């Protein structure tokens, strides 16, 4: 199961030959197909109501009327710090993604190739850490970071984010490495390549889907986080977008047009990334990774 499910291609592989067998049983492939299409379309429509509402309200004028307008976006970008918040969020997310992959990849390689007591102990440790609530870690980290000036700083926030991605990112990388035959790097070792060199030049170079999958995961953690940001960031010039958006609610009346405009700006990057890279994103590997060693 580990090898099969850890390949993103396994998810992407859609129409399966055996379906023909089933469809014949359920009476005509054509009709069944469109019935299922209608059912899926209806479910999707209901599920997406909140997203739809957000987009519509963002483009509707707050003064009333139904002509779509960009006025809300112009307003929030000119009168609030949204531009700054977006830049902060992008910086934090960028650092988190790069560092997270750079640290999780070698660790995942150890999990994938090492087979001894220490490695399986390390695997169990990752599992225990994943089940610790962030709230327990946040308070001591706040005190620790306050002593070294990392509170109210984007760097401090990024460090915590990288820490919170570690378990899942390591599993994801390990799951992908499992799908790369060890004979590849062994051949390189025989040719005089070091273990580290083999990892960098042979394994990592062939792991783009695994790296992208891990990167998308780290991106979602950093871009969407609210709890860690609300504890670590105090001044509105270093706010990330989630805190910025929440700050709109502290005024007496909620300006829904502005709130939804910021919301749209905020959900665009993850949606764009996912629309283009979703075929690389696989969480199935986590399961195999967890139970496989």
């Amino acid at each position, binding site marked *: *199961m580990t090898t099969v499910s850890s390949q993103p291609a396994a998810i992407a592989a859609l129409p399966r030959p055996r379906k023909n067998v089933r469809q014949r049983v359920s009476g005509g492939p054509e009709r069944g197909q469109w019935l299922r299409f209608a059912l899926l379309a209806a479910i999707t429509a209901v599920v997406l109501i909140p997203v739809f509402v957000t987009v519509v309200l963002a483009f509707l004028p707050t003064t009333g009327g139904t002509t779509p307008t960009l006025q809300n976006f112009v307003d929030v970008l000119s009168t609030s710090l949204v531009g700054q918040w977006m830049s902060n969020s992008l910086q934090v997310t960028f650092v988190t993604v790069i560092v997270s992959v750079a640290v999780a990849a070698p660790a995942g390689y150890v999990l994938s190739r090492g087979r001894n007591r220490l490695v399986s102990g390390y695997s169990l440790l990752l599992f225990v850490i994943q*089940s610790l609530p962030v709230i327990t870690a946040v308070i001591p980290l706040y005190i620790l970071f306050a002593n070294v000036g990392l509170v109210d700083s984007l760097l401090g926030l990024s460090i915590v984010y990288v820490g919170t991605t570690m378990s899942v990112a390591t599993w994801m990388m390990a799951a992908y490495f499992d799908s790369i035959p060890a004979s590849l790097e062994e051949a390189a070792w025989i040719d005089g390549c070091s273990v580290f060199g083999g990892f960098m030049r042979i394994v990592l170079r062939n792991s783009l889907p695994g790296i992208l999958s891990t990167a998308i995961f780290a991106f979602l953690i950093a871009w969407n986080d609210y709890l860690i940001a609300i504890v670590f960031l105090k001044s509105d010039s270093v706010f990330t977008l989630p805190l910025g958006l929440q700050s709109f609610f502290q005024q007496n009346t909620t300006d829904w047009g502005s709130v939804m405009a910021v919301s749209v700006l905020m959900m665009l990057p993850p949606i764009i990334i996912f629309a283009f890279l979703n075929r690389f994103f696989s969480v199935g590997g986590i399961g195999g990774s*967890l*139970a496989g060693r």
Partner: protein
Amino acid sequence: MTTTLTSARSAKEQRPPRMRRRRPGASPLTLLMLAIPSIVLIALISIYPFVYAAGQSVRDGSLISPGSFVGLENYRTILSSPDFWHAALFTVVFTVVGVFGSWAIGMGLALLLRTRVPASGVFKVLLMLPWIVPIVVSSTAWNWLVATPDSPIPLLFKLLGWGQPLFLADPILAAITVCLFKVWVSFPFMMLMTSSALASVDGSVYEAANMDGASRWQQFRDITLPLIARSTYISWILMTIFCVNDFPTIYLLTGGGPVQATTSLVVLAYRAVFQDFQVGQGVAIAFLMTLVLVIVSVVLYRQIRKSEIE
């Protein structure tokens, strides 16, 4: 990947392996070196705070002063407080509904998407949106939809003659709404997990079942479910962890209210620390919860690994 495979092979054939050189292999030391960045990070971000928190939970400190040693006083206060038990109960309800609700929907959609359906690729991406969209954004949209009596959903209910429910003001309705919100946020994750498990099931087993005249439900119950059982258990464990530790889904939609109706243990801990400045008590709440969660997780984790070996 195929190209590298062949090139590595041909390189090997051209140059005969130098046998005098000891085959390096990945020595334990090399593996340790590769894992060190992650170990340091985990020690700093996860283990150190956890140990520190254990210390805080037996002191009466605030965010700035360590306070003095009070023994198990914090734990005694918490365990005798009805708020704690109410929050514990809500956490259990929230987790059970969150795990099995999102699993049932995710499983249903994964099965549907596995069949031949026009534009299934588009549906896959669209159905992932609840999980991808930031909670801050989706909770805002949900709030707009249900919060006040004049919001669209209560108005729709009125139109249908079902009264004009106050989804976030009535304790029971608020609890239901928060659980529904969690299911809405989480089902795509379960759908992904189930999809990848289903993809690894060998299709030929169904052909045999078809010949034996097994109904679809029988095939699902007796073939599909057992074949993906291990992956299902893992997805339950992961979702349990996600639900118990969840903060934004609850806090951003209801703030834990009305009164205490939707206060989970994490929200209670957050309030104790950042609103009442009872750091010791807040950490003790989180610590108790963690202890239970870690014990449950480790037992289940071992169970899965045992089933793997057998």
